[in-house]
């Protein structure tokens, strides 16, 4: 098993230099993405069969590369297998999409070599079994994705995004490096040795905080999210899908691997920290998303929301595990893992949809789109499925994982600690708010871009996208539905992961009547996506047939009524900014210090009236800007050192030497 996985990763790595050559050939992109598709599919099938059929085997391998006295260790346990499935399902879908999408890429040489390397790096992170390989792969993943973020390097915005990304990625790796340094102090870098060691509770606490900073900055936890909405949209769309749908999950993997596996028994206050970060991340992320008008940026912010939901689930799992309620911990943990899988599906799907729109119109700004459902019907359908799924609406998959998270929250009065008793209801409230905002956000995204009338010429003349892209989108949409109506299969597949990480599993689901899912007991709560789907489909078709048969099936086309204002200009339709205006007024005035400035010219003037909206990103203004300013201030002061005379340099060196010797002597 692990040999197949490692050979596939090696193949991906070998494709990277081949990408340089292939990018000069006219059909090179097809060959490269095709090869990536084969390699990721192999990895996906391997990992899936490992997870389903041999979850209790943990094959491992050591390769004589990396540090000479350590070698590179790899291991395939249930957790790795599950994340391999997520990574490679996303990777395969992105490669399939790219088979058609590559035509919109003007400089393939800036993407092709990095794409397979990026896929390989994510796989190695998940497979690594020692800190050295893990960190090298982690950094490799950051760098290759950075290269693709700046692939359209002539746009100033992308260069800035790349700069911020590189800074934050370095910060995250630094935090992880310190965490591993602390863990390895008495055990060494091998994960097996770290597992066997017994670090003190205080040391473990510091490690958990560092991992939360390191993995959290990669995943996009507020307030470390600043780079994410800049970098994810800047990359080509299939890479955006990988970054948002998959790479954030690799970050979640890093967190789970260290906090649930490597570090010994959790303490309750860790979960408190995770919950206090996760809940606000969910709500703030989606509120930010609601304020945007760039499709890909909306999706990037919504990733932050979903990461918040995942971390809330993980925080709950930690809390229950710390208090010994491992059967509830299994529920919360499974909910989080299911959301990892679900989010990878629908976020990739939505980024593909955005990519198809971008390819067809060249626009990412929603206010220049509209009416695409007429011109790109298939893309519109697949994207609609993604929008419903991500808004956590039944019968699709997003709802199942949120429902399970809510069920875990409802069990939390059993926790003894008072801090958690007060925090968890608040976090539950934040999740409920996030779910409602997400629905609003995706009504806006879909309604403005795909419905209504075209707001620009490019939107009016768009064409349906190619077959490969459509296949990728429809495959993901089908997965969203299957995972929504047959969640029991997925919950059961996650059982070995949950067993390894929290020591217990959720009740066995497959085989229950009608494939219902019952997290604890039937008298307590149950949900059957299949029946909901069947009932809704049945009621809808019955109603349609009956009405068409017995009442009327006649239909006339006429101009829109619109309360009697005929032939209005498309510009009077609601725009992305006006759609979110009520929510901006209600919530944004505090959270974004939003202000509307209306300029109304005097009655006789021919000047247009203007409405300006001012939004402030308080996290950027309050956290990042001061840091940047402080660094700027300090470097300005130190800058004089660059222009000293040779005499002064010599004096400086002498003084430094004396001070150093004094320090050593004392």
């Amino acid at each position: 098993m692990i040999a197949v996985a490692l050979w596939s990763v090696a193949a991906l790595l070998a494709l990277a230099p081949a990408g340089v050559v292939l990018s000069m050939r006219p059909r090179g992109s097809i060959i490269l993405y095709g090869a990536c598709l084969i390699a990721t599919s192999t990895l996906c099938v391997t990992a899936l069969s490992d997870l389903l059929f041999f979850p209790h085997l943990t094959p491992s391998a050591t390769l004589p590369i990396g540090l000479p006295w350590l070698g590179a260790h790899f291991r395939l346990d249930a957790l790795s297998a599950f994340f391999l499935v997520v990574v490679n399902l996303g990777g395969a879908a992105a490669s399939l999409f790219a088979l058609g999408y590559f035509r919109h890429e003007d400089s393939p040489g800036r993407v092709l070599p990095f794409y397979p390397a990026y896929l390989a790096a994510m796989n190695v992170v998940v497979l690594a079994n020692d800190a050295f390989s893990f960190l090298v792969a982690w950094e490799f993943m950051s760098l290759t994705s950075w290269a693709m973020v700046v692939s359209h390097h002539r746009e100033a915005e992308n260069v800035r995004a790349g700069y911020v990304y590189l800074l934050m990625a370095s910060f995250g790796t630094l935090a992880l490096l310190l965490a591993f340094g602390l863990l390895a102090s008495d055990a060494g870098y091998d994960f097996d040795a770290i597992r066997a060691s017994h670090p003190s509770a205080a040391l473990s606490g510091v490690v958990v905080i560092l991992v939360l900073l390191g993995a959290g900055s990669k995943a996009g936890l507020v307030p470390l999210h600043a780079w994410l909405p800049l970098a994810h949209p800047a990359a080509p769309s299939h890479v955006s899908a990988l970054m948002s749908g998959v790479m954030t999950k690799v970050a979640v993997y890093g967190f789970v691997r260290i906090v649930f596996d490597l570090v010994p028994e959790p303490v309750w206050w860790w979960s408190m920290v995770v919950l206090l970060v996760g809940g606000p991340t969910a709500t703030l992320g989606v509120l930010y998303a609601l304020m945007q008008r760039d499709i890909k940026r909306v999706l990037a912010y919504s990733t932050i929301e979903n990461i918040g939901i995942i971390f809330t689930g993980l925080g709950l799992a930690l809390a229950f595990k710390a208090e010994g309620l491992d059967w509830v911990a299994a529920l919360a943990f499974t909910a989080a893992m299911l959301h990892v899988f679900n989010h990878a599906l629908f976020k990739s799907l939505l980024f593909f949809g955005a990519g198809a729109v971008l390819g067809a119109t060249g626009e990412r700004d929603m206010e220049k789109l509209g009416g695409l459902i007429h011109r790109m019907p298939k893309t519109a359908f697949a994207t609609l499925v993604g929008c419903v799924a991500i808004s956590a609406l039944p019968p699709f998959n997003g709802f199942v994982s949120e429902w399970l998270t809510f069920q875990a929250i409802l069990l939390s009065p059993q926790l003894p600690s008072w801090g958690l008793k007060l925090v968890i209801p608040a976090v539950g409230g934040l999740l409920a708010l996030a779910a409602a905002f997400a629905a609003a956000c995706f009504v806006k995204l879909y309604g403005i871009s795909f419905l209504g009338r075209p707001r620009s010429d490019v939107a009016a003349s768009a064409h349906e996208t190619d077959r490969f892209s459509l296949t990728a989108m429809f495959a993901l949409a089908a997965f969203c539905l299957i995972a929504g109506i047959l969640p029991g299969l997925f919950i059961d597949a996650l059982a070995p992961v949950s067993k390894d990480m929290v020591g217990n599993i959720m009740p066995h689901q497959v085989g229950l009547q009608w494939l219902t899912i019952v997290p604890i007991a039937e008298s307590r709560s149950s949900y059957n996506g299949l029946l909901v789907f069947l009932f809704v489909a049945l009621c809808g078709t019955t109603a349609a047939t009956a009405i068409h048969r017995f009442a009327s099936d006649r239909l006339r086309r006429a101009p829109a009524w619109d309360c009697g204002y005929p032939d209005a200009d498309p510009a009077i339709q609601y725009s992305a900014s006006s759609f979110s205006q009520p929510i901006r007024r209600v919530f944004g005035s505090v959270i974004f210090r939003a202000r509307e400035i209306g300029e109304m010219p005097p009655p006789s003037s021919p000047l247009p009236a203007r409405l300006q909206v001012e939004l402030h990103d308080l996290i950027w203004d309050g956290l990042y800007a001061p840091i940047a300013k402080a660094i700027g201030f300090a470097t300005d002061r130190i800058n004089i050192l660059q222009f000293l005379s040779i005499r002064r340099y010599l004096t400086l060196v002498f003084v430094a030497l004396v001070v150093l010797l004094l320090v050593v002597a004392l």
Partner: protein
Amino acid sequence: MNELRDILSQGAQMSLVLGLAPLLTGFVRKVKARLLRRRGPPLLQPYRDLIRLMRKDVVLADNASWLFRVIPYLIFAGTWVAASLVPTFGNGLLFSWTADLIAITALLGSARFFQALAGMDVGTAFGGIGSSREVMIASLAEPAMLITAFSVAMIAGSTQLPTVAEFMGSDAVGLRVSLGMAFVALTIVALAENARIPIDNPATHLELTMVHEAMVLEYSGRHLALIDLSSQLKLLLYVSLIACVFLPWGTATADASVARLALGALVYLGKLTVLGFVLAVFETAIAKMRVFRIPEFLGAALMLALLATLLRFVSGSL
């Protein structure tokens, strides 16, 4: 034999909610009219309206997409399924385990999601205004509903409505502060979700004050009939929900006899009458709010629900 009875009971429930929904709306309208010293439309007028609309041609806007034509059926199906999962006259519904309170809330959320999309499909300014305000109201009402569901579920130890109803009907409940708060919150949410005064006015056609009506402005014929029927079903759903959770007496149990079921149905009708009457009185006594006062009103519901949940976390008996 048991299974046959269960299927019949579930079928009866489905047709009952569908059949009663227009009557409840007609009843509320009638009472409101009488309170205003008008004669008001006959009780059965909603049925006549529906039949009339069903038989008319659909006049579809030139720009309307396929989604616009599918949405009325989706909304209707989603609302109908949700309404038939709330216990009305009897508790032992065959498929009640299909969706719990959270799932029912989400199912209504799906219906609203599509309704808001429909408002934006034709590309008119009024549709947009309706959708945009609807999602603003929903962004507060839905969390308030979910958190109310949490507090009720924590008291009853279950999110399954039949279990909740059974628990609420037992002697174990008593008077609880958190239940009172949950009741107020649920009532406010119900007013918002059903576009009733003071949130929205179901009778208005003054463009700038309407929310729900603005979204469905472009609908006509059978599509409009289905959307109207869905709104009526939704009103019935919320009234049944309040009755089931807060007035659980008289509901037939799972293994009740036919006579007991009939009694349950009578009691249920009585509850509908009382709650419908209260709604009409409330709507007559109060004025509609400005749009930007609504968030404060709904925010109060959200806070009450959260407080109810918190109280439940702090003490098992409150």
